[in-house]
């Protein structure tokens, strides 16, 4: 059994590491500068530390600052239920719901980042994020629950164990794709970056500088990294694989998911939220429900052992 502080430290390190990997991959895809761009996230972080925090006219400072600090904390908390090896820092009987709840709490945080500074673009970004959040919450929930359904448990370690014969992605492709898409939506990244879009001068990020910008940006990439690790655990069999030890396999799968996510996400333009939201309600919700139905029938037929 790990000591508590070791475990916390490991989760924080794993979260930051995965976030850094994601940020580096993202920067390479974005700038096309090759491997040299890999250090850019570190450079940006240092630059943010050098920068002054700024304020705006009549902001709600308490809520604003709290929300900025909450984003990375929530991302790390969602990392706490991601299985590393065959254990998690926090093994509850409802890990999957925990992961989802942290993303829901992110709503409140991002909304407040948009609201706090009392500025037009920022507020519009907050509105966009809420609309996006409402639309993608249900598909995400159904996607996560589908994995739980296949395993017959909400515990992530049970979900990984249930895939010893067959990876869930084979029978749950829709849930897998929706999970990754929703993760991008909750981190307002890639095609779902409308809340921080260039058309609203950076939206929720438009008034952030210095440490606060660093916190929010770090939270976003940590969430994306944690989601990639979670996707590997929930749908790609976690650490299972031949020859190599489990954690190595898990890391490889996580890196693969990261690469695919970045590669696809940076190939697309931002989807305008008013259109994407209709797609989420009218297509993704029924699609994920059907997916859950199919998996439920497979469970009844005994397909998952």
């Amino acid at each position: 059994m790990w000591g508590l502080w070791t475990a916390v430290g490991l989760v924080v390190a794993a979260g930051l590491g995965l976030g850094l990997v994601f940020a580096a991959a993202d920067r390479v895809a974005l700038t096309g500068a090759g491997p040299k761009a890999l250090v850019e996230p570190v450079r940006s972080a240092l630059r943010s530390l050098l920068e002054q925090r700024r304020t705006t006219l009549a902001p709600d400072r308490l809520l604003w600052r709290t929300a900025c600090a909450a984003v990375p904390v929530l991302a790390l908390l969602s990392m706490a239920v991601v299985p590393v090896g065959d254990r998690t820092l926090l093994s509850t009987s409802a890990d999957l719901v925990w992961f989802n709840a942290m993303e829901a709490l992110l709503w409140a945080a991002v909304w407040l980042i948009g609201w706090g500074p009392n500025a037009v673009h920022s507020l519009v970004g907050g509105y966009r994020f809420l609309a996006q959040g409402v639309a993608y919450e249900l598909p995400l929930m159904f996607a996560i629950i589908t994995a739980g359904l296949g395993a017959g448990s909400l515990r992530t370690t049970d979900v990984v164990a249930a895939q010893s014969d067959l990876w869930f992605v084979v029978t749950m492709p829709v849930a897998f794709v929706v999970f990754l898409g929703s993760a991008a939506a909750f981190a307002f990244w890639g095609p779902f970056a409308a809340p921080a879009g260039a058309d609203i001068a950076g939206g929720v990020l438009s008034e952030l500088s210095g440490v606060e910008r660093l916190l929010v940006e770090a939270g976003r990439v940590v969430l994306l990294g944690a989601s990639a690790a979670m996707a590997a655990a929930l749908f790609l069999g976690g650490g299972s694989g031949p020859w190599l030890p489990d954690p190595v396999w898990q890391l490889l799968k996580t890196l693969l998911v990261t690469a695919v996510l970045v590669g696809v996400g940076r190939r697309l333009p931002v989807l305008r939220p008013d259109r994407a939201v209709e797609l989420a309600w009218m297509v993704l919700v029924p699609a994920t429900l059907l997916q859950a139905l199919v998996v439920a029938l497979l469970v009844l037929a005994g397909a998952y052992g």
Partner: protein
Amino acid sequence: MDLTGRIRRWALGRPRVLVIDAPGGERFRWQLEDELDRRHWPLALSPADTDLALVLGRPGAQLAAAIELLWSQVPQPRHRQDIAADGDLPAQLDAASVALVDAANRTEPVQPGAQTQLGNLGPEPDDVDDEHAGHSGHEGHHMHHGGDVAGLAMADTAPDRDGLTLDVLRVALGPVLPGWPTGLVLTGSMQGDVLTGVELAWVDGSDDPNHGVLQATPQAVAMDQLARILLVAGWPTAAAAARRARRDLSGSHPQRAAQTQRAAARVASRVRGSRALRWSVQGIGSTDRGMTPAGSAHAAGDVWGGVRHWCDVAAGGEPVPVAGSPRSLTEASILLEGSELAAARLVVATMDLERPATRVETESTGV
């Protein structure tokens, strides 16, 4: 050099740049953007995100005042530099970079201004106080006393498209925004993110006598417009590709002309062929309402039509006769009425707006 100094220099080695181009400096802006792309210096989206503010050309009095206000919101460390068109561009950027590190080494107690965002820059500094985002009281009904707080007027209410009478905010966009024609100011009311009562005006722009003379092929101009649209539409990788193609098109390498043409055509067909972009922008700014004269450059009348048009020109296709294509501001403001903020930004980015040829004193737009 001590370690901290070295780290500081490294950290600021890729400063985020806010380019402010006084009208008429397009060609020079292209060179600057190419140089920034070469150095991988990212473009800033807002003052909060800015390290370096580079001012191109000679801004007129009103634009200069707006720049001053914007500059007051940039957090330390920061550096602002006027870039001269006839100077050595890389040398000037190197100098700016050094000056930025110097600024970081000095610890100045200057606080950035407590203004809200650059979206709030009105044509006159007095207007800034009128804009006020979310904190909206209902002046129009119940026992509320109206008035203003912290110099900010409370919001008013007005009928909206859902039949609810909700708050409206007075907003002003411009004159400096990413992907926005510098010097253009949009004033209007906003409910949620829907703009009404839109009025457009140019601030005085440039003092430069060579103002408005852009020596470039229509193809390169179209590629520039495409880069702007893609930036606003949120497709940074394609925007960078368009900027690269623009550089090659405006360069003088006759021996590589065929290659340049192929590259330009590739960028154009990538944008044209993007289903995601088409799905996102189709129907925005549609002129179904019969506002646009026939024969306008925008075949389908919407942003996607505009994108296709610019792609055709940028790919070197036959230059579509653009009879009367630069739209007047009045025409544009009618088109923007009732559109969402994002849609308005896309429509403006797609339009080839007519700039006043000489200095114009804008009358007060009645905010």
